[in-house]
């Protein structure tokens, strides 16, 4: 598979995902369905083409660049953020702390439980 081929695979999966989301009025973004389609295809195929791995690796290594154009849209919303700074900053700090605590504590407890059951 060439680089052109890998890009075509990624875009085709996205297109298929967007079409499925539209056809069935699904509450999931098209590219996410495309991700699931590609994942299933790789599992069924039992192998990852080296060129696809390389192209995806290039795209993902610059993932942070890709959200800059949209993030710069903050200039349009600067006043909104300033006006609602209290709920926004609380949701950011406390919300993130709650998420880390709930996820970490739940998974650690379950791993310990399984280890206990084995021994």
């Amino acid at each position, binding site marked *: 598979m060439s680089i052109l081929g890998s890009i075509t695979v*990624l875009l085709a*999966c*996205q297109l298929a995902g967007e079409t499925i989301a539209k056809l069935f009025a699904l*509450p*999931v*973004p*098209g*590219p*996410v369905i*495309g*991700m*699931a389609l*590609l*994942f299933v295809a*790789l*599992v069924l195929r039992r192998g*990852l083409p080296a060129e696809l*791995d390389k*192209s995806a*690796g290039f*795209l*993902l290594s610059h*993932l*942070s*660049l*890709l*959200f*800059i*154009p*949209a*993030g*710069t*849209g*903050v*200039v349009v*919303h600067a006043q909104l953020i300033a006006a*609602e700074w*209290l*709920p*926004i900053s*609380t*949701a*950011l700090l*406390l*919300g*993130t*702390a*709650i*998420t*880390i*605590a*709930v*996820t970490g*504590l739940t*998974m*650690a407890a*379950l*791993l*310990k439980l*399984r280890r206990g059951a084995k021994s």
Partner: protein
Amino acid sequence: MTALWTHLHDNPLTWLTLTLVVYQAAHWLWRRAGMMPLLNPVLLSIAALSAILTVAGVDYARYFSGAQFIHFLLGPATVALAIPLYKQLNRLRQSALALLVGLLAGSVAAILASLGLGWLLGASHQTIMSLAPKSVTSPIAMGIADQIGGLPSLTAVLVILTGITGAVGGGWLMDRLRITDERARGVAMGTAAHGIGTARALQMGEVTGAFSGLAMGLNGLATALLTPILVRWLMQ
């Protein structure tokens, strides 16, 4: 001189090139500063570009006419997240149950905490909906925000700030809570703080990083499925 500025201002290529130059400069600065979380290149780039656009009096639509070519790549990049997910297939199978339960609990906690705190402190409906998917990687979060009545561009900024929050404070918090298992620490970082959290988790160790990347992909999927359902349920 005015003619030159008019030409540059009207040419989308100016804004596409500027975005690439600013990002690489920010990335260089961040590496020079020992990858200090507060100097996150995305945060720096957005701050610099916002300042440039404001000072030069360029409106966002003009800027986006060039930057949209970078923005477009978010779609195929989201699809490409299937590849790291596939590479972790064996690890995934080994602690699948604990991982899935922890991830789902964290995913629901993230959405409910955002909705609840936003609502309690009197944020507008649009802001609350923009906050809801802020723990997942931005192509997915922006798609969700668009769908439930948030502002995708506001969500993109909130996603980045959430990532920085998790990367800066996550390790400290988990030490306090005595969460020592590397797999659990990784899943917590990836679930709460997506790619920026995963970058931090990779510095903590290989296993922590791998599980964080895995959790980031899975939580993207879980949040995309759960957010519209939870929002609909709470609105009733």
